[in-house]
């Protein structure tokens, strides 16, 4: 296997202090260098991305007094895909008095991540979670209230306490409106300059530091150069490498990948999360999948007919001929097992030929019992908007017929490697939210993505970026600085090349084929043979892309094919690295399931002796062997054991 990569020096996080885990974050905040308010005005920060992580960081740093320039490729920060998160946000408030604590949230997250995350980071996340809720309430976020007027909670997959705060099924939307309002307030106050409809295409590295970005104005095509003392990427995940995913169509890896090419390590790319409750694929020309909130598993029961190919209406199948397979196999957690387990179980029953719906790729999510138990109004109050959405998309009424669901790619735990300060290996380049790898290990628990994005943006980054900026402002650069000119020329050359190929295949057809390869060989179940095949096919397809892609139009206009072509080109390189990462990790853990490594019951089997590390990859050139740098994971506070949800 060594022909695919080279092993380099190990790497470690130097920023997390030693000592008791509860004190580490306070210690770090106290030891970090500060910047006095008068000096902050002289320091500039570029923030790319305006979802929860980016908008909260921009608002907070702007309010602190730094000069912030913010970028997003959408019309408005309000369009970021954080909007689509439905279920909720975790916080260890223990309002229910059901045994929750910061330690338990920390423990659940480490265990849920299958012991592949960093203890210090996760503990900090659990600590900060408590503050997020107060912050959001102060912004007017309409969290659900219980009868006494206090904040309500519900439980979410993979845990046994109720710690999830929610705003009907629109939690992401409500939190984003809060962050967006905070951001717009800073825009109006003049501390944040907002650049919408701009796509970042390159990072400028000068004097060993990240000093700016090259962005394309997506309306006029102008290639702009922007400088700052530090750059923050809050650009989300790379799930769209699979073509069909629940991510928004615009989600892409380009910003992160460009930074990777300039020296930032990319960690654990093979850790992808496949979400168990999505609306199944319906046709050949489908461009996107839709997620149904996992909170549905709280009251819905998942089942398939005991016999495959049962043609009956699900309502006519008697109780004893149904297989509630999650409740049967995991009596303690039942339908609330973590996402990776629920997804794989669905895949298994469908592979056995017991799937339902067109193509046999679906399982039932049934609310008949819940409606009988709580009454339809109660179900409506809790899940009404999700049911409406399902009905709008499928044309079926879930109050009457069980929903059909199937797993789909949803979240990527991997991302740019960062230290405890959220700084990548490229000095001055910080990475927050889904774009970094830090907190979720090999599998993310439900309602933790909103928590992490906001924790990074509101509380972590504003307390660590100062340690770096205290040494600034750095040398002034302009467009004639050789590094900036080179970066801008690279971008132009790449655009010209894409436009000049003038082949016969559309960008989408390449993307779709790439996605199929990834889904088949690097999806829910991976094997050595399959991954090797995938790597060969990706390389072949990438070659064909650069020979035969057809991108019409020019650079000086709104050109969506051109935008997409650049993104797909980066997906090719990422896809190869994902497969190499998946191939080298000859164990199963969390979202990464290697068929060769499973227990007798078909559960993921880790190999802690050999693989208890973060795989951080260094870029060595397109098509060259990447360099593997290991960060060993040590567990002082949580004992590593085989996950069991029985």
């Amino acid at each position, binding site marked *: 296997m060594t022909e695919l990569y080279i092993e380099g020096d190990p790497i470690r996080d130097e920023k997390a202090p030693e000592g008791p885990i509860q004190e580490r974050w306070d210690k770090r905040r106290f030891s970090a260098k500060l910047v006095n308010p008068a000096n902050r005005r002289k320091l500039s920060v570029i923030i790319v991305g305006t979802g929860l992580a980016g908008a909260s960081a921009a608002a907070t740093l702007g309010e602190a007094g730094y000069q912030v320039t913010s970028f997003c490729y959408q*019309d408005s920060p309000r369009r970021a895909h954080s909007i689509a998160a439905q279920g909720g946000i975790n916080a260890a408030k223990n309002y229910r008095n059901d045994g929750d604590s910061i330690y338990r949230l920390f423990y659940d997250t480490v265990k849920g991540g299958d012991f592949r995350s960093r203890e210090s980071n996760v503990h900090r996340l659990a600590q900060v979670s408590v503050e997020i809720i107060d912050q959001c309430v102060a912004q007017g976020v309409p969290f659900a209230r219980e009868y006494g007027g206090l904040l309500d909670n519900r439980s979410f997959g993979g845990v046994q306490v109720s710690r999830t705060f929610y705003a009907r099924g629109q939690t992401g939307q*409500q939190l984003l409106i809060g962050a967006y309002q905070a951001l717009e307030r800073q825009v*109006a106050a003049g501390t944040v300059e907002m650049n919408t409809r701009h796509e970042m295409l390159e990072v400028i590295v000068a004097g060993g530091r990240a000093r700016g970005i090259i962005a394309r104005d997506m309306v006029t095509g102008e290639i702009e150069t922007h400088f700052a003392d530090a750059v923050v990427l809050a650009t989300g995940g790379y799930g769209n490498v699979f073509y069909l995913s629940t991510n928004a169509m615009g989600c892409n890896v380009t910003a992160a990948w460009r930074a990777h090419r300039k020296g930032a390590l990319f960690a654990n790319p093979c850790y992808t999360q496949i979400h168990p409750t999505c609306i199944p694929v319906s*046709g050949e020309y489908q461009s996107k999948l839709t997620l149904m909130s996992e909170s549905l598993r709280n009251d819905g029961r998942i089942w398939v007919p005991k016999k495959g190919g049962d043609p009956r209406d699900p309502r006519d199948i008697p109780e004893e001929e149904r297989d509630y397979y999650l409740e049967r196999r995991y009596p303690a957690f039942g339908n609330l097992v973590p996402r990776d387990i629920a997804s794989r179980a669905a895949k298994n029953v469908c592979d056995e030929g017991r799937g339902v719906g067109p193509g046999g790729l679906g399982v039932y999510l049934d609310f008949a019992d819940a409606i009988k138990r709580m009454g339809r109004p109660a179900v409506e109050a809790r899940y009404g908007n999700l049911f409406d959405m399902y009905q709008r998309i499928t044309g079926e009424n879930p109050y009457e017929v069980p929903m059909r669901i199937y797993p789909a790619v949803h979240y990527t735990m991997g991302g740019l490697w960062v230290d405890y300060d959220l700084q990548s290996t490229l000095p001055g380049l910080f990475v927050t939210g889904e774009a970094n790898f830090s907190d979720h290990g090999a599998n993310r628990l439900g309602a933790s993505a909103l928590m992490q994005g906001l924790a990074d943006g509101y509380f972590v980054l504003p307390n660590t970026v100062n340690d770096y900026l205290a040494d600034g402002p750095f040398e002034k650069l302009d467009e004639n600085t050789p590094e900036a000119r080179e970066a801008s020329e690279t971008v132009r050359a790449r655009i010209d090349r894409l436009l000049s190929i003038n082949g016969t295949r559309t960008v989408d057809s390449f993307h779709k084929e790439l996605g199929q390869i990834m889904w088949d060989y690097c999806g829910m179940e991976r094997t050595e043979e399959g991954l090797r095949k995938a790597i060969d096919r990706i390389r072949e397809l990438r070659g064909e892309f650069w020979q035969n892609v057809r991108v019409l139009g020019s650079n000086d206009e*709104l050109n969506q094919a051109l935008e997409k072509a650049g993104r797909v080109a980066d997906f090719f390189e990422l896809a190869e690295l994902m497969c190499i990462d998946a191939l080298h990790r000859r164990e199963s853990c969390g979202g990464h399931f290697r068929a060769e490594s499973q227990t007798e019951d078909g559960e993921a089997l880790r190999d802690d002796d050999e693989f208890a590390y973060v795989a951080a990859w260094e870029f060595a050139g397109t098509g060259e062997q990447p360099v593997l740098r290991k960060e060993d994971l040590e567990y002082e506070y949580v004992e590593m054991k085989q996950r069991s949800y029985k």
Partner: protein
Amino acid sequence: MATERTFRVWRGDDDGELAEYRVEVNEGEVVLDVLHRLQATQVPDLAVRWNCKAGKCGSCSVEINGRPRLSCMARMSTFDPDETIIVTPMRTFPVIRDLVCDVSYNYQKAREIPSFTPDPKTEPGDFRMYQADVGRPQEFRKCIECFLCQNVCHVIRDHEENKENFSGPRFLMRVAELEMHPEDTADRRNIAQEDFGLGYCNITKCCTEVCPENIRITDNSLIPLKERVADRRYDPVVWLGSKIGLRKGADTPMVPNTRPGREAEE
């Protein structure tokens, strides 16, 4: 169950024209799926803005046979089998290209509204609020900012000159949402009338009719806001009370420096 259908789609900018295509349509598809097929098979450079394809991001607003709709939620099965489908960009905003508009007018208006202003004396966790009070403003926070309501509102659809002084239903609803929050301490009633043009609205309910989230914009936000404004500005008792200094609390001004030309005027 594929059938062939006629689509007429806007090409070009404000001076563009409709182009006609015959295109395959399958069962269960929405208009956006068909636009994608057009892109994939016939017109690779057709500009269509979309993002989430779940009716949540608000990017794919267009006019379909003259009606403002989200193209990702407009099921083909709701049209007659031989109906020609005409897809045009939203008329109220400048067209950048094909079906993509420049909606920055709206973001400008958003910035003018003073944000949520909780009582600084409330400690975290202290504040109690009943679900009914949460639910009322939350209805307005379902808004996905697709701007179909802004597009259909005749105050600006047919009168470019009103744009400066009229925020449109979306943002008057935002004002109502903040005003209805029990913990909010700002008073935006005066600017709602003076700066955001609430008085232009004559309750034709077009906004409510096109809302993809089924928010009852007129009944639940605009009319109650009008009532609150009437109470603040025209109730003789209130007028007298503020004249003799019995009523405290100042009007909150529009966010400074957000309306171009405003400072020069004053």
